[in-house]
């Protein structure tokens, strides 16, 4: 196994995702994870605007709504703003877009993943969790094509298995894991490089 210094984790989740994200982020926080975490969680627009607050109340790390042109910083959890697509530019800053919804979603997980694959190449970890639609599978495949590490939540554990299954039908991700093992793997990979 090559020693790959990962620089960011992008995550996508839909139905059942808030609980899954809280569990995963909690475990990553306890393990002292310093990687920037960048998440798209599908929600109705009104709930979306409260997501950062909900997560911040339960987590140690700083949580921010990703702002247009803001640089990605280590140790921070970023969530996408409601009503806008979130992308990452090659200089590792965020950009927003008000283009039409993709996969009926704005923000769309595919758009975040595809742009992050370009920006980070093999230094990226992509995580696709529970959800009732197929957003994210194309983006996750692109992360794999660009050499990044792809993790999919074990469908049996997911509150809604559609999204993980859509990814598994599309390609073979590196790992299909329960959330607990996923957190462990990310922490271990980070530790390997901190040495």
């Amino acid at each position, binding site marked *: 196994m090559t020693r790959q210094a990962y620089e960011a984790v992008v995550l996508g989740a839909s139905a059942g995702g808030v609980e899954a994200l809280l569990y995963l982020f909690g475990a990553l926080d306890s393990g002292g994870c310093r990687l920037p975490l960048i998440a798209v969680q599908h929600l109705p627009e009104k709930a979306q605007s409260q997501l950062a607050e909900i997560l911040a109340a339960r987590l140690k790390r700083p949580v921010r709504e990703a702002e247009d042109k803001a640089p990605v910083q280590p140790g921070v959890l970023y969530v996408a703003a409601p009503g806008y697509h979130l992308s990452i530019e090659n200089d590792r800053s965020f*950009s927003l877009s008000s283009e039409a919804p993709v996969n009926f979603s704005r923000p769309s997980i595919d758009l975040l993943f595809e742009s992050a694959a370009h920006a980070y190449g093999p230094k990226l970890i992509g995580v696709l969790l529970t959800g009732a639609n197929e957003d994210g599978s194309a983006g996750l495949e692109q992360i794999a094509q660009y050499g990044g590490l792809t993790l999919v939540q074990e469908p049996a554990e997911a509150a809604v298995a559609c999204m993980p299954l859509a990814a598994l039908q599309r390609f073979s991700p590196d790992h299909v894991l329960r959330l607990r093992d996923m957190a462990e793997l990310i922490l271990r990979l980070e530790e390997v490089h901190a040495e």
Partner: protein
Amino acid sequence: MPERTAEIELRLLLEAIFLKYDYDFREYSLASLRRRVQQALRQLECASISELQARVLHDPAGFMQLLQYLTIPVSEMFRDPEYFRGLRQHVIPLLRTYPSLKIWVAGCSTGEEAYSMAILLREEGLLERSMIYATDINPLSLERARKGIYPLTQISGFTRSYQAAGGASTFSDYYTAAYDGALFDKSLRDHLTFADHSLATDSVFAETQLISCRNVLIYFNKQLQNRALGLFHESLCHRGFLGLGSKESLNFSSYGKQFETLLRDEKVFRKL
């Protein structure tokens, strides 16, 4: 590395467009542009960006088709009603003090925001002494804006936003429904000038009191965003107003210290 090749092709395409047609997309945010070019490839049935480049270089009509993908023709009336409510409550009272008003809607796309502004000014009794300059780089969008006809299917959404924005009248007073379109009042149109202007290559054309440029700067990289803000700063009169999109800010630009925040949530700024 196929992705590396595609990035080179994309840069070459933007350079070719600039050299041939003077449209400058070279400093647009790449993530979104890359995606829109991929959409264009599918729709225009080109196998690669290089093939698309050859097509647009030799065929101006093909370029006009591509331009529809490179620009983002997404707009609606009274979008983010709280923005217009903020203007009505906090900016209009100050605009009243000017004998005549020039307002710039930059990146107006198909004109919905410019008509919204005209309606707001009409209701506040300011339209008669106002001229609204609404600019864009896409000639097809400008043509639609000049017509002032919008699909009837959109009108119920526009009406809701108009009411939420604090509309003082009945929205249907402003248009005539015919077939499947709503034609907006000619007397609004008399105070609107739709013109071709590029924030990337053109300069300031008038002194203005208010500039509204919403969800345009998000498609630019930092350098181009700074260029556009420079134009706005130069165009605005002393203590003039600048309105941005609901998730836009001056925080990551070089103009953060040259404007003060008037309305934080509604994203209205004032020149210092």
